[in-house]
C-alpha cells in the first residue's frame, strides 16, 4: 500500500512524504527534499566568475580564470556528493530494527541501522536554534554512551508531517512491545 502527500518544510519549500505499508510489521517513509534550484546555482557561479575576472584584470594572470573554473566545478561536485541530500528514508521493521537512509544528489547513499533491542522509544523533540523553533524526530537508545539519535536532519519538515510519521512508528513500537513481552 503506497500513498504520497505533500507537506512544507520550515522555510516554505515543498516536501513530498511517501508512505509504504508493506505489512503490519514493516513500514517505510520517504521524504524528498526540494531539488537544487537553477537560480541559486547560476547566482553562485556568476559571483565566483565575476570575482575571478576582477582579479584577472588586476593581475593579468590567466591562471586565475582557469583556477576559478576548476574551483567552481570541484565545489559543485563536492556539494552534490557530500552536502545536498535528495531523499531521506525511514524503514521501520518490527522485531528487527529501524533503518535511516540518506541519498545524496550524486547518488551516494549513507545508511544507519539500529537494532530494535537498542531502541527505547521514538519521540518528537523541539530545539530552539537562534530565533527558530525546530521540531525533529528523535530515536532514544538504551546505550548509555550515546543516548539519542536524530533522524531526518537535513529536510526540516513541519510538525504535521512529523506527527504522521510519529503515529505510524508508535503503532509498530507498541505492537513490538506487546509481542516481545509474551513468550
Amino acid at each position: 500500500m503506497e500513498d504520497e502527500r505533500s507537506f512544507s518544510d520550515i522555510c516554505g519549500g515543498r516536501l513530498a512524504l511517501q508512505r509504504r505499508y508493506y505489512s503490519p510489521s514493516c513500514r517505510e517513509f520517504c521524504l524528498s527534499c526540494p531539488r537544487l534550484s537553477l537560480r541559486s546555482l547560476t547566482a553562485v557561479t556568476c559571483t565566483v566568475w565575476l570575482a575571478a575576472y576582477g582579479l584577472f584584470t588586476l593581475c593579468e594572470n590567466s591562471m586565475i580564470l582557469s583556477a576559478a573554473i576548476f574551483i567552481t566545478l570541484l565545489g559543485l561536485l563536492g556539494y552534490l556528493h557530500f552536502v545536498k541530500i535528495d531523499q531521506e528514508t525511514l524503514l521501520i521493521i518490527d522485531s528487527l530494527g529501524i533503518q535511516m537512509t540518506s541519498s545524496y544528489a550524486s547518488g551516494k547513499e549513507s545508511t544507519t541501522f539500529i537494532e530494535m533491542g537498542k531502541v527505547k522509544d521514538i519521540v518528537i523533540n523541539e530545539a530552539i536554534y537562534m530565533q527558530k523553533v525546530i521540531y525533529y524526530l528523535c530515536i532514544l537508545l538504551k546505550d548509555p554512551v550515546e543516548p539519542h539519535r536524530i533522524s531526518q536532519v537535513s529536510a526540516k519538515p513541519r510538525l504535521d508531517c512529523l506527527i504522521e510519521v510519529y503515529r505510524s512508528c508508535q503503532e509498530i513500537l507498541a505492537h513490538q512491545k506487546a509481542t516481545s513481552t509474551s513468550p
Partner: protein
Amino acid sequence: MVLKAFFPTCCVSVDSGLLVGRWVPEHSSAVVLAVLHFPFIPIQVKQLLAQVRQASQVGVAVLGTWCHCRQEPEESLGRFLEGLGAVFPHEPWLQLRRERGGTFWSCAVTHRQAPAAPRAPGEDQVMLIFYDQRQVLLSQLHPPTVLPDRQAGATPASTGGLAAVFDTVARSELLFRSDRFDEGPVRLSHWQSEGVEASILAELARRASGPVCLLLASLLSLVSAVGACRVFRLWPLSFLGSKLSTCEQLRHRLEHLTLIFSTRKAENSAQLMRKANTVASVLLDVALGLTLLSWLHGRSRIGHLADALVPVADLYCLKIHGLSSLWRLFRGKKWNVLRQRVDSCSYDLDQLFIGTLLFTILLFLLPTTALYYLVFTLLRLLVVAVQGLIHLLVDLINSLPLYSLGLRLCRPYRLAAGVKFRVLQHEAGRPLRLLMQINPLPYSRVMHTYRLPSCGCHPKDSWGALCRKLFFGELIYPWRQRGDKQD
C-alpha cells in the same frame, strides 16, 4: 514475535531438502546455513551435525524443510515432508516452499507443543531475510561503542541478533568444507558447494612462511642484541644516537620487523590487521627511501645551513640576565638564590656607581644584539618548522594503516560497520522478503581503529613556555620527545 529466517542467497535455487542451521530463541531467528539434499540416511545426518556441533560450539540442527518444486506438492510429498518433522524433532519446525521460476515464497511454522499462553492470530508470521553467505563469513563487524568493562570473550548471544548471525556463520566453517564433488554420505548446498576456493600461491606462501619467519626472527634478535650492548651507551655514540633521527627511525623499524616476523600466530583479527598494516608500512618505507635516494643521486648535494645562532643566542641570553640583575640593583633588591625570590639589600655607594655604569653600557648595546638575535632566530625557526613538518610527515606515513585502507577500497564487505536492509518485491498475504547487505565502515573509522602507534611527536612545551624561552634566549628543540634525555 515475528520469526526471522535468515536464508543464504546461494541456496535460493537449489533442489528440495532439509534446512540445516541454528535457532536463536532470544531473537526468534533461524539462521539457515545449508540445505541437505535427498536421499540421506537420518543416522548419518545426525552424526554429521553432532560432529559440527562439537567442533564449532554452535548449536547446529535441522530446522525444517525446503521445497523447490514445479507446482503445488502432491499429497505424498506433503506427508513425507511432514513425516520428516518426526525424525528430526525441532521446535519450531519451519517449512519453506518456492515454485520453480516463481518469485514469491510461502512459509509455514508449526509448533509441536501446545503453547503455554494463547497466541494472537498472525503471530506465527515469518520474515525472510536473504544474506550473502560468503560476505557475511568473511566480514568482521565493528560495533559502534565498546564498553570498557566488556571482556574480549563475551558470549555473542547476549549481544544483538545480527552479531549472533555473523558469529554463527563465521564459526560454522566445518560445515562448509564438504562440496558437491566429495563422495561423502550427505550432500550439502552452501556457498562453497561448487568447489572450495583456494590459491596455489597462497598455500605455498603459507608453507614457506614458517621456516622463513624463524630464520628472520633469529637474525633480528641477533641485531637487537648487538644494538643493546654496552658500547652504544658510552658518550659519543649515545649522543649521536639520540640526535640523529635516522637512528630513531631504525629502532622503530626494527621493532616493526620483529613484530612481522615473530613466530607467534596472531590471536585475533585486530592483531592480524596490525601485522598486515606493519608489513604495508615497511614496504612503503622501503619504496619511498629508494625513490628519495635515486632522486638525490640525480642532483647535487644539498648544502647544510650553518647554524650561527648558538653564540649569538648565548650573548643575548647573558645580556638579558645582566640587565635584569642590574635593574634589581637600581631598586635596591637582590635575587636570593637560596630562597629563589627577590629580597631587599643595601648596596655600597661604589657598588651602585659601577652597577649604574654597566647598566647603561648594556642598555645601549641591547638594540644591536637584539637585532642580531631576531634575525638568526627567525632563520632558525624556519629551519625548525621545516624539520617539524618533515617529522610530522614521517609520522603520518608510519602510522597510516595501508592494508586496512586498501581492504576498505577493494573488499568493502570485509570491514563492516553494520548491515542495511532492502525490501524486495512484496505481495499482500505473502511473507515479507528482505535483502540484508553489509554496510562498510567509513574511512574515518578505519583510520581511527587501525592506526599504527606512532612515535608520539607531541611537543614538550606549550606555546607560552615556547614564547618565554624565545624571549630569554634559551635554545628551543620543539621536536624533542618527552622521554628523550636532556642535552
